[in-house]
């Protein structure tokens, strides 16, 4: 059995761990509020963008000459997967959930005999994926220095993707991220962005005829790259809200576990202290009796 001194030290160390996790939870909660707010504020933009593109693609007359970002290269051979994770750990299953989803998708692709290329955003995803898919990862992007998700970073990612697409390095592009539902639930999502699969978010089918200036093709050519930045930015916002939410609940659990551990250790400490006292008393009494 551990000595009294050892127990005392352990209690102190668990208590200080608890303090840290508690502080982390508090920080995550504050950051979560901000991240959630910006995720909600960012939604109108991506929804509007989506709707405009939908209206445009419905109105496009010549489907064969449609921009490649919309219609694809016509092949389905090389898949580019953009796996978006966080740069920091200690956030529960946040990163593992994305990785798990991505790995499932990867093995599905390889069964179908398709080529795979991976771009990772965020260091944690890179660390986990490089063990198995090291030769497939063509780029690792990290925004450790930027505090919050910002549009500028999203544009950088989309520029890289579009550049590779124009060099015909891949045919289909899918992004992986966590969608924020609430603090305890984040849903890992796979979203195909090239070729674009547009869905109406409001479920209304519109057949308004628009006037376009300049013509549809030119607008689409201009709009589609922007849409990719927007989608990536949306994913980044959702991701950062999810990360904070996930960290908050993980740290909450850790704090609670530490509390339970402290209780248990304190009981053990008191018991052994009492045992030591009793033992000493018995020794004294039996010593007195033998006189």
């Amino acid at each position, binding site marked *: 059995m551990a000595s009294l001194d050892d127990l005392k030290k352990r209690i102190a160390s668990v208590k200080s761990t608890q303090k840290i996790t508690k502080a982390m939870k508090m920080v995550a909660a504050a950051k979560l509020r901000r991240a959630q707010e910006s995720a909600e504020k960012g939604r109108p*933009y*991506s929804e*509007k963008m989506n709707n405009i593109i939908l209206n445009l693609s419905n109105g496009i007359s010549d489907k064969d000459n449609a921009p490649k970002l919309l219609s694809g290269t016509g092949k389905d051979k090389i898949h580019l997967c953009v796996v978006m994770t966080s740069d920091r750990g200690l956030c529960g299953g946040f990163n593992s959930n994305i990785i798990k989803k991505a790995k499932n998708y990867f093995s599905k692709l390889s069964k179908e005999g398709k080529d795979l290329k991976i771009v990772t955003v965020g260091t944690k995803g890179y660390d986990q994926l490089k063990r198995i898919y090291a030769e497939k990862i063509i780029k690792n992007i990290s925004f450790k220095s930027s505090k919050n998700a910002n*549009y500028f970073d999203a544009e950088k990612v989309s520029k890289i993707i579009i550049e590779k697409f124009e060099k015909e390095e891949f045919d289909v592009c899918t992004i992986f991220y966590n969608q924020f539902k609430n603090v305890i639930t984040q849903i890992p999502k796979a979203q195909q962005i090239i070729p674009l699969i547009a869905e109406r978010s409001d479920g209304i089918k519109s057949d308004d005829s628009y006037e376009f*200036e300049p013509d549809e093709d030119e607008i689409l050519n201009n*709009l589609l790259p*922007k849409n990719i930045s927007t989608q990536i930015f949306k994913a980044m916002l959702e991701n950062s809200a999810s990360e904070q939410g996930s960290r908050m609940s993980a740290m909450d659990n850790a704090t609670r576990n530490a509390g339970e551990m402290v209780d248990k250790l304190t009981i053990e400490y008191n018991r052994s202290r009492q045992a030591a006292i009793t033992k000493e008393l018995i020794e004294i009494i039996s010593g007195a009796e033998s006189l």
Partner: protein
Amino acid sequence: MSEEYKIEIVNPEKSFLIKEDVLEVVIPAFEGEMGILKDHIPIISFLKPGIIKIYSRSGEENYYVEDGIVEFKNNNLSILTSSIDNIKNMDKSKLQDLLKTAEEETMNSEISDQSKYLIDQKIDVLKSLN
């Protein structure tokens, strides 16, 4: 009948401006400036660098934009842009900065004609503001 309609300007981070009492908006569309009044036909267009002028019941407002998409439908004008600033909030030094970067870009000989055209537009607008 009222002559007012609704304008909404959104940028990726947030909803930038919502106004319900707009009478006319002049936008720097790609193929020239365009004034939009109530009951304009549905239109989609995109913007070149320039100034958005909003005339509303509560007065006149001017915004500087660098790019964006405009959609007008059912008397709702939506402007999506990633770069917008109220001219009132732009001071001389910021204008100078923007002008300087734009002038540097135009020195770059590798840019396409279209982006050169856009940058030249930007320089013109910035100079007129200065």
